[in-house]
């Protein structure tokens, strides 16, 4: 009995620790004017107020939300499609320098994005893409090393015999990929998609640098606007964070099973 209490105790403590920031987010988002400084952080503001949400939407937050959904969907779709094609090539096609190319590409994971930001900005400027949707989306739309790595490892673990059988039945490369490989790769595809959605949804620095007009502004930048030189409107920041959080939460709850499974599966060789 004691042995069971201890691990559960640790798990519950860990849970509380992990949930606490979100708990504070919810409480702070619903505090009205003056309640933030008059109450303790973990004390609810009574009566609850939606004033922060009013300020948020008065600042054009609804439009930013729509932009973020569209941009996230666009970039994610691009990343998944191109990553599948690239990963399959790295896993199954043979061409000169394939593995070298793969490792070189993978090594770009080690370069922090901050380092490439200014050169990337200059490239976009030369292409005339500053403050355009294309400039916002293209640099990351053509796949990411991490997604390609995950997919390649998974594709390699699929028995080649299955693909050979398809080939004997007359399927070409594309048909094999679409009809045999992809259906077997659902868990990893869900994982890669989820990771892409989360990364693009939260993306901040690049959208900030490359876009300027308000009609192309994203959520993350819209929330940061409530942090001014003099002070921070914590209520509005938390209200915005709460709204930004909900879609990710839904995504995780729906696909949780797949995500856990794919991480477990990729561990096997």
């Amino acid at each position, binding site marked *: 009995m004691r042995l069971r209490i201890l691990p559960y105790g640790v798990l519950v403590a860990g849970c509380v620790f992990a949930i606490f920031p979100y708990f504070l987010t919810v409480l702070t988002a619903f505090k009205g004017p003056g309640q933030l400084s*008059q109450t303790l952080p973990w004390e609810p503001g009574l009566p609850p107020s939606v004033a922060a949400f009013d300020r948020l939407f008065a600042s054009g937050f609804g439009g930013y939300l729509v932009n973020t959904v569209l941009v996230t969907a666009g970039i994610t779709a691009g990343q998944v499609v191109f990553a599948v094609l690239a990963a399959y090539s790295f896993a199954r096609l*043979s061409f000169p320098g394939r593995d070298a190319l793969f490792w070189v590409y993978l090594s770009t994971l080690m370069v922090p994005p901050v380092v490439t930001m200014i050169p990337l900005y200059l490239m976009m400027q030369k292409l005339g893409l*500053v*403050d*355009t949707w*294309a400039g916002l989306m293209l640099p990351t739309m053509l796949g990411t090393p991490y997604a390609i790595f995950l997919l390649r490892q998974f594709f390699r673990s699929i028995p080649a015999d299955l693909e050979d059988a398809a080939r004997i039945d007359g399927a070409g490369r594309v048909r094999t990929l679409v009809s045999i490989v992809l259906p077997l790769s659902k868990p990893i595809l869900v994982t890669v998609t989820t990771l892409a959605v989360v990364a693009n949804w939260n993306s901040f620095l690049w959208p900030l640098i490359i876009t300027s007009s308000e009609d192309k502004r994203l959520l993350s930048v819209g929330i940061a606007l*409530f942090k001014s*030189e003099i*002070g921070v409107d914590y209520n509005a920041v938390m209200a915005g964070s709460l709204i930004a959080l909900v879609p990710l939460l839904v995504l995780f709850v729906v696909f949780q099973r797949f995500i856990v499974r794919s991480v477990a599966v990729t561990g096997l060789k």
Partner: protein
Amino acid sequence: MSQKLSRRTFLIGAGSALALAGCGSSNDGASSGGGGGKVELVYRLWDEQQEVGYKAVFAAFTAENPNITVRMEVLPWDQYWTKLTTELAGGKAPDVFWLTVENFPDLAGKGVLAPLDDVISKAGLTLDSYHPNVVQSYKFEDKQLGMPKDLGIVGLLYNKDLFAKAGVTMPAELTWAPDGSGSFMDLARKLTVGDKQWGFCSWNHSQTQWLNWIASNGGHAMDKPYGTFDFAGQKSIEAMQWARDLIFKWHLSPDGTRTNPPTGQATEMFYRGEVAMFPANNALLPFALPEVKFPIGVAAMPSGPSGRTVVINGLAEVMFAKTKHPDEAGKLVAFLGSEKAQKLMGDAGYVIPALNDAGAGYTAYWKKKGIDVQPFLDSAAGSTVNMPIAEGWTAKVAEINKAMNDLYLDKPEVAAIAATMDKIGNDK
């Protein structure tokens, strides 16, 4: 078993990727002129509240200059500088944008800010009409690189409820001295209740705290703009020691374990009614008002052994040296410096205009909200001192402010802290 990727397939792929990259519209972003001689200028700022005010200003500007429209870009305060730096590395920037005293030195020497002397004289304006400290802050090698916009001035906010409860009133003049004498400390004593309520909050904030004490004690943080730091001078050390004594010797203020940045707790304590008197920049008022449950009073800062000298922190609008529309941007800058534009912003209660004698509307606005802000304006008209600036300042100022955290803890010696700060500031 596998096909080779032919060179031709590869080239087709690469070609289509490039074609895709070329798809975006080639809008240059920074400034785009439409047809028919119409010009759109980009004006960048970081304050969402003031954005509302500037809509009226730019409507008035376009009424006078029908061919020029202004598009505002509001950015978050922290990221304003990240984005500006990246853009300047790419050789572009908004046509006209805001600048602070702290960030001025990093840009002034790089040739990215257009000299405004011609713009100012051509528009029939004269720099003598603006607050001299704000004018001085944006001067570099005898060229005026910034149009004085507004000024932030430090005053003493106080909690009128706590004053009433203690049965005291705010006198017209408060005094302090390093030895602990003066009416300011007597008042703070009456407003301190055990360790629940503090008469004052002595905390690490350069603009509203220690720079004022140093100046009012007859010392100086720096001998001249881009000069030498002198925190270790005797007058400076006395003033810093006094700031520490308020906490540890006379127990009139919470200590640095609670108030040291980056917590932001000092301001919160005033909002909660735990601190009776709290020095602040006038720009804090719009943020403080919705957060407090007591009436706020405003008084002038206490005057020290060499009188009252208050820190002033002015903003300026600057013009990008390589703007595509120098004539139009010049007209905009001149308009922003005009009485009409400055009064529009002042009358709506956003800022105290940098233009002399244009603050009446600001006072009237806050009077309607029940706050007499005249002490702020009087202080601005009295003896004022600029925040120090030096080459590479944005990196140094963060280090200096961090070193000052120790003053509000009971160690080490004040002289040692001052020496550290001088070293950071004077190192090349």
